[in-house]
Structure formats: C-alpha cells, structure tokens
C-alpha cells in the first residue's frame, strides 16, 4: 500500500540535501545561444558556480545542517527532516513523523547505511551504495568536476516558461543526470535523475527555486519533487554553516556495525 512512501520520503530527504545550490554573476564568453551556438556544458556549470557565490566562498564552508519539511499535500502528509553534511562526503539524515516512524541514512567512510523503524537496519550495496556516495559528496554541484566526468550542453528547453540550457551530466559510473540551467540567471532550475534503492530504480524530477543568499552563497530553499506520480514539496526551514556537529553524528550505529561484522565473519 503505502510501502513506497518510506522509500520515497528518504529519497526526498537525500535529494534536498544534495540540491543545496548557489548563485553568482555573469555569463562567461560569447557563447550565447542567440549566436546560434550553444555554450559548452563546462562553461554553463562553471557559470552556475560563479553566480552561486564562487568557488572561494564555497571553500569557506566546511559543514552544513539543514532542517526542512517535506509535504505531500495531496496525500495529507507532512514530515520533518534534518540533514547533517560535512566535507568531503560525510552525511547523516533523519526523517521523522508518527506516520512513518524514524528513518536515518548515513555515509560513514565508505559505508552507506539506513536504519528504518519500518524496514529495519541495512547496509547498502551495489548501485544504491554507489549512488549515495556520489550524491552525498559535499556541495557536489559546485565541485562538479569531481562528481561528473563530463558535462555536455545538448540544447535549450523551456522549464516553467524560462529558457534553460539542457546539460547532460555524466558521472564516472551510473546513469547521466540531466541538468537544466536558466539561460539568463545561470541558476540550476531542474535535475532529472534515476534514483537507485534496494527496491529498484526510479526516475525523479527535482525543480529548484527560492534561491537565497545564505552565508555568502546562494542556496535553493525550495525543491518540488516528482517521483512515481507523486508530488512533494521540500521547504528548507533553516541552514547553518560551519557549526559544531553533534558528537558521533557520522559514526556507524551499533546495529549497522553488527551487520558489517557478521558479513565479514566477525
């Protein structure tokens, strides 16, 4: 029945964490589509970094705590989530509500794990693990050259009435993501991707908006997520940078360590 719910909610939390993005200034060279030629994908991505505040401003951010709400209005559900992230790729998220209990997900070193009251503890493997490691890299869309091996602009499409460059972002492994950057502002407007879970691969569309300057960088405070025909609205409530993280927040939980130990014959 609502078994897809838990999975989708956890996807939403991850997506929101990953999609904290930023702004900046001008379009680099004379590569505008008005001249008939498309700019290179690399220049579009670099422009996004610039308009988001620039690589130096992002370099000053070591960690981030984001609190958000996830609302599925049609289904009458609202959840609260908190995401702890730190460079270069430490990650812990918690989504909680009486409707689903508690779902925690984390990346501790190279271990990707999940603890869900409903489905139990698990250590992620295969595509799901690889995807989580890629997606939880800190400020991935800023340090995009580390996350993607290529960025190719394939055209201009209207997203919500606004002209956007369509950029195919290809990671070292896994399916390409399609990014849409606004032609005029340079901001990232939409991401189309495939989400991998232990249950299977699911297409997802994330629309970003409500960019706000936050500690010297531009961050999207609103993400509309379309997944399996459901719409969910993710609103950021607060963002804190360079904070004292709770002790042990990125550590492996005991039951996850026990699963790993059993797996290794310990």
């Amino acid at each position, binding site marked *: 029945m609502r078994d*897809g*719910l838990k999975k989708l909610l956890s996807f939403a939390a991850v997506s929101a964490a990953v999609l904290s993005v930023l702004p900046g200034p001008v379009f680099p060279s004379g590569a505008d589509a008005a001249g008939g030629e498309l700019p290179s994908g690399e220049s579009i991505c670099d422009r996004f970094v610039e308009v988001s505040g620039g690589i130096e401003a992002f370099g000053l951010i070591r960690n981030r705590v984001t609190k958000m709400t996830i609302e599925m209005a049609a*289904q009458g*559900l609202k959840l609260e989530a908190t995401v702890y992230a730190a460079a270069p790729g430490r990650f812990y998220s918690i989504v909680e509500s009486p409707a*689903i209990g508690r779902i925690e997900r984390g990346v501790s070193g190279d271990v990707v794990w999940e603890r869900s*009251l*409903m489905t*139990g*503890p698990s250590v992620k493997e295969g595509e799901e693990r690889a995807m989580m490691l890629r997606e939880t890299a800190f400020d991935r869309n800023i340090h995009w050259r580390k996350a993607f091996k290529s960025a190719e602009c394939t055209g201009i499409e209207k997203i919500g009435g606004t002209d956007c460059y369509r950029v195919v972002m290809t990671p070292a492994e896994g399916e390409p993501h399609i990014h849409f950057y606004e032609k005029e502002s340079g901001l990232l407007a939409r991401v189309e991707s495939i989400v991998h879970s*232990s249950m299977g691969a699911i297409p997802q569309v994330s629309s970003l908006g409500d960019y706000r300057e936050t500690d010297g960088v531009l961050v999207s405070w609103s993400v509309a997520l379309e997944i399996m025909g459901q719409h969910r609205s993710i609103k950021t409530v607060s963002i804190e940078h360079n904070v004292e993280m709770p002790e042990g927040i990125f550590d492996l939980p005991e039951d996850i360590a026990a699963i790993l130990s059993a797996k290794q014959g310990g």
Partner: protein
Amino acid sequence: MRRENSGESVKAFDAGASVRNVRTERRGGSFFRCAAAAVLLAFAPACGAPFGSAPAGAPALSAEQKELNRASLEMVWSTVNERFWDPEFRGVEWAAVREKHMAWLDRASTMEEARGVMSAMIDLLGVSHMTIIPSAFLNGGLNDGAPGLVETAPPEGTNPAGEHGSAFVLGHLPPVAVTFESRGIDDDIGYIRFDCFMDPVFLMTRFNGAMESFLEREGVVIDLRGNMGGVGAMVMGMAGWFAVEKGASMGTIVTREARLDLILNPRPSAFGGRLAVLVDSLTVSSAEMMAAGLQETGRARIFGGRTMGMALQSEVILLPNGDGFQCVTGNYISPLGRSIEGRGVIPDVEIASADGAGAGSDEALEAAVAWIRDGDNDNR
C-alpha cells in the same frame, strides 16, 4: 476440517479464477465486520445505476458544489489515467468513460448521486482499494469536527486480548488504533497477533521487542487473521526477522513507472526456528503480502482459510469537493510471480473453521503449534 494443499492445487486455482468473480464472492457480509478494513475499502457502494439511491430529503447540490464535483470527477479520471498500474486499464476503454460519466454527473442532484457516478466509473476497473470516501469519513474532513476513532473489531471467536495503541492518523485516513498481542505458548513457542499494519512507532516497537524475546524459541506463530493491512513497508521490516539470506524478496510492486522489489533486510540476529502464519478470509492487503511472501520464499507454513484477495498498493488523495479518493497505483506480485488480487493466499494447511474458531477451540492455532513441535517432518 483440515486439508493440506500442494503446489498443483495452487496452480489449478490460478488458471481457473476470474478476478472479478472471486472478489465479488469474497466481499460478502462477514468482511464488513472488520470496521477498519471497511474504512479503507468500502466507503461508497459501487453503483451500477448511479441514480435513484439518494435518501429522501437529501440536500440538493448548489451550482458551486456541482462545479466542484465536476472538478473531482476530472481528478479521479486523470489520476487513474496517469497512475493506475496497468496502462491497458484491465481492458476498460478508459479514455471513453470520462465523457459518459461527466454527463451522468451533470444529472446528479445530490452528493450521494455524485459519489455514485464516480464510484461507478472507478468500479469499471474491477479492483479493490479503489474508493470514493465521503468527506465525513476523512481525517480533517468537511464534517463538524474530527471523525471518531475506528475500532478494529476482532473476528468472532478470536482472542480479543492485546495492547491497544492510541489514535493513529495517516494522511487523510481517519484515526485507527492498532491492537497488538504477544505471548508465549508454553516455553517453546512465541505468538504474535496484530490487527493492521498501521502506527509504525507503536507496532514495530512491539513487534521487534517480541521477536527479541522469542529468539531462543522453537517456533513463532504470526496470527494475521482479521488483519486489515495498511503500510506495506512494515512487511519488509517484520519479515527481516525471519530472513535467512540478504536479497530475499517478499514480492514486487508493479507501478506505471517502476517495479519495486520488496527486498528484506535480514536482522543482525534473525530468528531461525519454525514460522507458522495464521490467515483467514479477513486477512487483507499488506497482511496478504506478508503471508504470500513468507510462504513462497519457503520461510513459513500457512494455516487457516484462503485470504481476501485484495492486495494492491494505493493512496488516498483529497478531491476538490472535499471527498477522498483511494486510488490504486501498484499491483502486488508474489515471489513466484502470482497476482494476489482477486485470488488470495491459499494456505498450506486449509482449516475450514479458521474464520471463527469455536469457543475454547482454535484449530488453526493448534495445527500450527503441532507442526512447530513436530520438527522432524518438514524443515519449513
């Protein structure tokens, strides 16, 4: 009366069953004893003829209400059009039904009639979990105040003992209180019963606690008789206590966009003893998925009566007129590739009295206990 089933009998049933007929036959009067299941499955009667059933004196619809009803029928039609798992709509020419039912809706003079038209439209698909829910039944609906707590009444003759959770609300559904019971049968067997898969904080905490206390027992009995189902993710969490290998699946949910495998996460200290599952004709939805998954992965032996055969993924959305629409979005396919919808789970050991054990006697439970203790005959 007891009968042991073989794989052949299961296959024979598969080949001969008409989904629609089985469903109709099995939605008989006794089903509606289970009030909570009725919340999910039977708010509005499906009407072949949508008019003429309005109670005398029912208030006439205003022009605004008629517009809202039109918008609601449009939402119902388009939601099915975009999200019903079968793009062939089970043989129904879905594109054609919208205009016809919209014309009927324009003739509706009361809310009863309007709901009847929408119900008639979705009933063409002939599946469970597809219902128009009057606003008065919804959590936070348009009625005066919140709806009352839905009591989950145990089937007659079963043990009503157990701990009751508090009112739990999931989205637009009315509040439900889960009943959970766990106890030992002598010193060698653990027994767990609950009446729906809702309120995960209450239910999973107790289920996990019970399983931790039963780890050293010879066997465990999970009693799903009268269980109305609910949040299917809990099926994976519970079955993880009995998983012997990573990657085992309790089946697949097929939606328009994806196939979702119900993969188990084995618990760090899983239970390795015998597992018996009790079912009956009031075992519904997620409870059927759990029984089918454990049966077809060879992990459990199933005792009792054939289940309801209403195993689909659905969700409840709010319509512009304030009513709810429970819409099917996925079909459950068991590990061996069977659709349980309209068919049900056929127990390994069928017991005719499973629906209502006589006072002082519970043949299904007794058979399960005897099988667990007779450990030499069958490894499952």
